[in-house]
């Protein structure tokens, strides 16, 4: 067998590829990130805000872009595509065609001099053709890598031999018109496909009149909403006026077998809701209407988001899918005809703008790539995977993730991406670290005894800051502050080239402290700290002054006051940075084992994935058997028995020498922190582990008090599944009631799985007995994505579907179910039912609160565990070293639970794979000389980091034993409570010392900029 190669090729640099790349690179594998466009980022880079949190897409993405750019283990191959793949798992030769950019990336500084001189204008794909760019261009301001590219098709020199302006003006001699496409062979052990999707082009659906300038696709609308878009976030019509009424039309190019696109696109209901909300925030006068078939708000927090949009924000949701858009040829006005809710009538309404919620479609280039890789696709061009191996393609060693497999949103894409990384990592676990480069930093400058020499950059953030705050005035002011040696303005301080500028400035001006006045440290501090390190500065000699979130954005109408405030904010930061000390982390040995709590599919997958990478996994399951919920139902939605999935998995877990399984056991105590957790199990055994994964799943809600549950022949789906397997269903007419006990005040969330489950079971019933009559009563059918197939199949088999509303629920009594149908003029419709099956939601199991307390991790209002960041960290907790997976996070399907299980393992293993653990520099230390041993710190510390130890004090006169406080650096979290409590100021809360904070207070006070002298 050929040697294993500790490198992975990732095709597609969207959020999926980026996440896979970071996980693998952090785990010590070399990554080649191959992206066909000039910049990584994918569609997420084009989005404005993201649902359901309305985070700014670019703000959450750009730190990741920068992280990829500066990761020593990642090599980006932009403007490149895979031409061929040969070899086998562990050892592939991947031939990559690197398209000519005609700009030498090593020479171009993205100074943009060439842009001004290029005469050739081209529709800008980043802005979906709503604006123009030049033939030489940077795809978008935060592009990575940040170098120009020449669009050969439109360059006058390359097409006609004329012009040549860019070469003339480029001072760096970066232009090379003779550059040719070239092939490069890279050697890797595994390949991940993540080339994403293409938005559906609605042109063929002529009835929607996409050619009208005010009929837009949703992705064009995202660009309109975006501050970096064609109209700087001002939503406007083609004639420049502001629309007062906008309609979104859902399922354009989705759920339409007639055009060969039967699947649901899974994200468009939510993004339309988001777009409507954001647009209404821009303009409170705006009327936003969303025409839909079903509102598919199935993910975590989605239903609540939808309800908020509807009930609080006043977004109008109309359950009708207009079949076209009409244009008045005289006025050019747009209108749609729709069915009026709660009536049989239609209405015609005019709108200023119409947004087509277009679906996600596999891109042609993805299909081509899949063919090159030889992996199987489904009939629509999605990569074929199975429920139990959701990221595994038909070719060993080649994995897939993201929207290339099926339409999905960002969090599901990210989970997939970590999952695929886990799979690739497993193949190459033995090769970890063989091909990587240590992140190289220059030796750190010793600044002891130096006067502070402070550099300050004030960021425009494009126009985010500069449109409100007078940035040049702030720069001028900052220059007058004590110790400030150099201050300057920057359009985007966080762009890769700006980071290089910071490094240069530090060197050039011999700076020993640095302040960036820009945005929130919560997202950008690590980036700039790393930059400082790159310039030989200790990262703690850096300070962020937040003049965006805390100033420009919240004082948009008071530019003068905002400018004053910005000056003061920077002044306070300068005062602080002057007093900051270099801090050092400690390298600690730690445990390379992982703990997994919960032995369902998510937990078992996580344990297996950890074990595959050569680490020990402890799997703790409180029941006496592994398997979790999968033991409660009998078939999967693809028709196979659940045992076909669960039995081999249990077998694999039980036989894996790296996994210690504890059934009938719980975890009762935990202490310590990432790297060195100690736990006590209910059997008395003590275990040590470096990281933990919570995969405690969910239970089917017992719908007591709903729809006659408890009376004869009213059961839940899980009972039906058992009866189906036992062949004990004896009914002629079955009624299923969806959302039984869900999507209400007590459980305001959608349980995601029960619509699919109902379809699955209805199909089973029909296939067993075609004469059976089935009515499914629903509020929305949420068979999202590819599961729409099941809904289609159920209708093919003749299942009846009738809608009810939350305010007019069906009534179950004496063997009948009665509901009202507006099309039947609300005449009571009485179904004589032999069996009523309630689709009740998944709920969090008992005991989650205990686990939450043990690990100090949060749970949400619905008792599901709350991840660190809903979009980009779906399986992380804010607490280091603790992860979550599966239904513990929110209800989800088996494939999704498994994907998260792998994802959590990937995240955990990127820690376990390290040789040692680094502590944070931010923590508390005790000055023994001042400590009087009062022990108050031990009382307030939530982690028991300080302990009183006996020390022998030797003075000239006497020697005595006394007690002094000592703080364990591995445990201390740096909250500073002890320092605030200590009566003698013996405790220093590093990076937040009394001195530093006092200096900031003083700087607040002294408008003249007086800064306290450094001691």
């Amino acid at each position, binding site marked *: 067998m050929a040697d294993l190669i500790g490198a992975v090729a990732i095709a597609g640099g969207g959020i999926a590829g980026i996440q896979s790349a970071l996980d693998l690179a952090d785990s010590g594998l070399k990554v080649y990130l191959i992206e066909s466009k000039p910049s990584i980022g994918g569609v997420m880079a084009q989005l404005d805000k993201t649902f359901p949190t309305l985070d700014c897409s670019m703000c959450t993405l750009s730190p990741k872009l920068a992280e990829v750019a500066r990761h020593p283990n990642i090599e980006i191959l932009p403007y490149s595509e895979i031409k061929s793949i040969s070899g086998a798992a562990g050892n592939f030769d991947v031939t990559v065609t690197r398209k000519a950019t005609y700009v030498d990336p090593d020479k171009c500084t993205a100074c943009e001099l060439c842009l001004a001189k290029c005469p050739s204008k081209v529709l800008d794909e980043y802005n979906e053709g709503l604006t123009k760019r030049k033939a030489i261009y940077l795809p978008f301001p935060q592009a990575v890598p940040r170098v120009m590219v020449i669009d050969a098709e439109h360059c006058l020199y390359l097409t006609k031999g004329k012009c040549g302006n860019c070469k003339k003006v480029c001072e760096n001699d970066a232009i090379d018109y003779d550059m040719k496409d070239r092939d490069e062979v890279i050697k890797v052990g595994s390949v991940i496909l993540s080339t994403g999707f293409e938005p559906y082009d609605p042109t063929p659906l002529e*009835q929607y009149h996409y050619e009208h300038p005010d009929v837009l696709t949703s992705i064009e609308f995202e660009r309109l909403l975006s501050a970096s878009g064609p109209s700087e976030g001002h939503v406007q019509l083609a004639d420049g006026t502001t629309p007062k009424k906008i309609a979104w039309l859902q*399922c354009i190019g989705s*759920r*339409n*077998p*007639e*055009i060969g696109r039967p699947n649901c696109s899974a994200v468009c209901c939510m993004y339309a809701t988001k777009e409507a909300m954001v647009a209404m925030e821009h303009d409170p006068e705006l009327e936003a209407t969303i025409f839909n*078939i079903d509102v598919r708000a199935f993910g975590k927090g989605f239903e609540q988001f939808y309800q908020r949009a509807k009930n609080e924000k006043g977004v109008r949701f109309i*359950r*009708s*899918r*207009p*079949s*076209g858009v009409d244009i008045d040829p005289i006025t050019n006005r747009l209108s*749609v*005809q*729709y*069915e009026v809710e709660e009536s*049989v*009538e*239609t209405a*015609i309404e005019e709108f200023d703008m119409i947004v087509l919620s277009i679906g996600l479609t596999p891109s042609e280039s993805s299909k081509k790539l899949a063919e090159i890789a030889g992996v199987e696709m489904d009939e629509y061009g999605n990569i074929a995977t199975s429920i139990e191996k959701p990221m595994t393609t038909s070719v060993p060693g080649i994995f897939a993730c993201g929207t290339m497999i099926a339409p999905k949103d960002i969090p599901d894409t990210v989970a997939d991406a970590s999952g695929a990384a886990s799979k690739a990592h497993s193949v190459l676990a033995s090769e970890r670290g063989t091909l990587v480069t240590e992140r190289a930093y220059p030796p750190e400058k010793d600044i002891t005894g130096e006067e502070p020499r402070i550099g300050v950059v004030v960021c425009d953030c494009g126009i985010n800051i500069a449109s409100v705050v007078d940035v040049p005035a702030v720069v001028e002011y900052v220059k007058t502050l004590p110790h400030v040696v150099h201050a300057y303005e920057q359009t985007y301080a966080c762009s890769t080239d700006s980071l290089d500028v910071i490094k240069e400035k530090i060197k050039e001006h011999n700076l020993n402290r640095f302040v960036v006045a820009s945005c929130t440290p919560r997202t950008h501090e690590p980036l700039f700290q790393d930059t400082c390190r790159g310039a030989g500065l200790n990262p703690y000699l850096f300070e962020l002054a937040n003049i965006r979130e805390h100033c420009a954005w919240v004082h948009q109408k008071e530019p003068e006051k905002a400018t004053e405030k910005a000056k003061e904010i920077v002044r306070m930061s300068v005062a602080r940075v002057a007093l900051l000390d270099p801090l050092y982390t400690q390298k600690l040995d730690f445990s390379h084992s992982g703990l997994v709590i919960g032995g369902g599919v998510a937990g078992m997958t996580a344990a297996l994935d950890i074990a595959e990478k050569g680490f020990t996994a402890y799997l703790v399951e409180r029941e006496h058997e592994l398997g979790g919920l999968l033991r409660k139902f009998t078939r999967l939605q693809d028709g196979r028995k659940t045992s076909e999935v669960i039995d081999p998995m249990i077998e694999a877990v039980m036989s894996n020498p790296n996994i210690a399984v504890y059934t009938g056991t719980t975890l009762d105590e935990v202490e310590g922190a990432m790297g060195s957790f100690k736990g006590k199990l209910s059997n008395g055994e003590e275990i040590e582990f470096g990281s933990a994964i919570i995969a405690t799943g969910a239970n089917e809600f017992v719908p007591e008090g709903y729809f006659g549950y408890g009376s004869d022949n009213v059961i839940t789906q899980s009972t039906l599944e058992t009866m189906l397997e036992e062949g004990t269903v004896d009914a002629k*007419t079955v009624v299923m009631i969806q959302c039984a006990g869900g999507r209400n005040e007590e459980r305001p969330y959608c349980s995601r799985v029960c619509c699919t489950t109902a379809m699955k079971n209805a199909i089973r019933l029909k296939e067993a007995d075609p004469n059976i*009559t089935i009515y499914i009563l629903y509020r929305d*059918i949420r068979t999202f994505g590819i599961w729409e197939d099941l*809904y*289609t199949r159920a*209708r*093919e088999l*003749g299942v*009846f*579907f009738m*809608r009810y509303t939350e305010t007019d629920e069906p009534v179950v009594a004496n063997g009948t179910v*009665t509901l009202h*149908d507006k*099309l*039947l003029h609300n*005449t*009571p*419709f*009485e*179904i*004589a039912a032999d069996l009523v099956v309630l689709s009740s939601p998944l709920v969090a199991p008992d005991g989650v609160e205990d686990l939450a307390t043990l690990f100090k991790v949060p749970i949400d209002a619905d008792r599901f565990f709350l991840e660190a960041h809903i979009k980009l960290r779906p399986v992380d907790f804010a607490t280091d070293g603790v992860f979550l997976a599966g239904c513990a996070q929110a209800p989800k399907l088996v494939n999704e639970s498994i994907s998260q299980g792998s994802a959590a393992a990937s995240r955990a293993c990127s820690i376990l794979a390290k040789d040692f653990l680094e502590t944070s520099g931010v923590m508390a230390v005790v000055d023994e000389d001042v400590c009087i041993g009062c022990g108050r710190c031990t009382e307030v510390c939530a982690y028991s980091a300080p302990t009183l130890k006996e020390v022998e004090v030797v003075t000239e006169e006497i020697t005595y034993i006394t007690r002094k406080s000592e703080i364990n650096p591995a445990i201390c979290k740096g909250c500073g409570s002890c320092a605030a409590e200590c009566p003698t100021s013996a405790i220093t809360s590093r990076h937040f010392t009394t001195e530093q904070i006092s200096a900031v207070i003083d700087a607040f006070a002294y408008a003249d900029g007086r800064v306290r002298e450094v001691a």
Partner: protein
Amino acid sequence: MSDTDMKVIKTSDLDLAFREEIMKEHGAEKLSMCFNCTGCTAGCTMAEHEPNYNIRQLLRMANLGMREELLNHPYLWNCTTCYKCQERCPQGVHNVDILLKIRTMAVHSGIMLDKHRKVAQLMANTGHAVPINDDNKEKRKKLGMGELPETVHKYPDALEEVHKIVRITGFDKLTEAQS
């Protein structure tokens, strides 16, 4: 309170085989595929002018097996068969083909509008749904054309063929005036 207010639709009274009967018709196979997007109604020109007319409602009743109600539905004959709905249905439900099938089922159950019966009889008798009249004979002459067109109007043998066909198919009986 009137009777209609009290009405309840009971599944036990419905004809569950009705849908299958319709779906056997060529073109009507996808009746059950309707997923109630409303697209057919929301686009129907007739619905714009006759608010009580809703093609989706008719399909729904067909699906649910409401045979009697549907065949007697006051708006069953409102569709102009413009095919807009059928062309735009994402599920490939052939609304018009289905409706035409339902209408034949109505006629075969003896449910027919008087005005339609008259046209049917005209056609059965003269071979033309809109036969010639004196006024138009005049016009034809004025245009220099034969008084009668070269159709069954002019060829009694041909008309006899038509008569024979309607007798064989039973169309004459089917559309006979009801007592």
